[in-house]
């Protein structure tokens, strides 16, 4: 799989670290709501189809970014701003 790093361009997946579902809204700093944090940390839509996710170009420029990918085909939709 080739992953388009927004800084370095297309690179092999082996240079990246996956960072999980990026569609989830992280509760704001200061939020003490246990349920909100539980759902954010532990629950996943895990769709079979389009997915927005975090990746880090960990063996490259270290940039974290959001990527659109289809989990049913591994087709890359591109970087999401």
């Amino acid at each position, binding site marked *: *799989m080739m992953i388009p790093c927004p800084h370095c361009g297309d690179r*092999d*997946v*082996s240079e990246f*670290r*996956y960072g*999980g*579902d990026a569609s989830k809204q992280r509760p704001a700093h200061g939020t003490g709501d*246990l*349920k909100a944090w*539980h*759902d954010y*940390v*532990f*629950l*996943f*839509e*895990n*769709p*079979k189809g389009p*997915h927005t*996710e975090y990746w880090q170009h960990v063996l490259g420029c270290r940039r974290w970014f959001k990527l659109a990918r289809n*989990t*049913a*085909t*591994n087709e890359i939709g591109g970087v999401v701003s």
Partner: protein
Amino acid sequence: MSKHYSALALARHALDPGMPWPKAWESPEPKSSYDVVIVGGGGHGLATAYYLAKNHGITNVAVIERSYIGSGNVGRNTTLIRSNYMIGGNTAFFEHSLKLWEGLSHDLNFNCMVSQRGQIVLAISPVQMDVFARRGNIMRLNGIDAELLDAGEVRKLLPYLDYSKDARWPIHGAIMQPRAGTVRHDAVAWGYARAASALGVHIIENCEVTGFVINDGKVSGVETPRGRINAGKVGIAVAGHTSHVASMAGLKLPVESHILQAFVTEPIKPIVDHVVSWGAELFYLSQSDKGGLVFGGHIDGFNTYTQRGQFNRIQTVAECAVSLMPFISRLRLLRHWGGIQDMTPDGSPFICRTPVKNLYLNGGWCYQGFKATPASGWTYAHTIAHDQEHELVRDFALDRFEKGRELDEFGLGNWTYKQ
């Protein structure tokens, strides 16, 4: 026509070529209603149906499978069985599973080739030996076999490992579970299917569940392309696709679907007589009865439903194989494939009720689905039959993350993709 399998029956059939074997399992038309419908004709679903019938007398059961039975992970794994678990909620469950494995061929009258050849986990540092010792001690304290081996003992058992000064990590010793081993994976699906079918369970292949019938928070059936099938209770057993199926019942779960690759070499004469695992990186290898070396490593590391692995992971695993066992370099990889497995934040599964009445969940198996098969079926059948979790799975509940009761067997932290 012999229904019972034995050497004698085999001889009778050999002498009389006109005598056909009966079908291993029947393929009836689905009825409009069952007491229990199990979604998923994999190892866990079929085992559940079998134990529902055998242990609980519930025979009006259908197993509904979207493809052929055993088409999921029961036919895609590296066939290992073991019970070297040290976290309280896990140990007894997996030991129960191993005990069931030990009698499975007899119980099912189907040779699953349960081979207790022993698993040896190699330590690469003194610190790792301590970590392994903790595991082994817990096993011993729970009546499970475990032995600590020093480097010399390892060398006697596994002469083909790299003991040279070139080895990146030295072998300090190992922990061994002699009763661990391998099972002929497909036979598990077929054996359970045959035995369940003989007890009256309907096995319905090529029939995908497309929805649940839920009213007032209670499930009463499933939708399929062959029509609605009513059910008193419905059990989900579709690990790999648990999120997808559970979402049809409105459930969002602590599960991500990841691909785990597995590998087999060309068949060779016996050379590896144990299951060998390595402490340097996740890597495990055994030799099948057919002669191929079967091995695997870590998941690819991002969620996907494609059963296609990434080449960099294939390299990683080959590097492990050749570095640990340098003779493998000259052997050839015959096939590699991928299975989709449910990954959970703590690496442990679910066998429990759900917020939907009469709908039950079995999933989240991470790396351990195959070895868990018999106990999973056993306890899931109990959970469904009694609408109450079996005591062996009381820690496999959905609400454990809410409560702070994670079952992190390996201390890997809250990353589904690293578990």
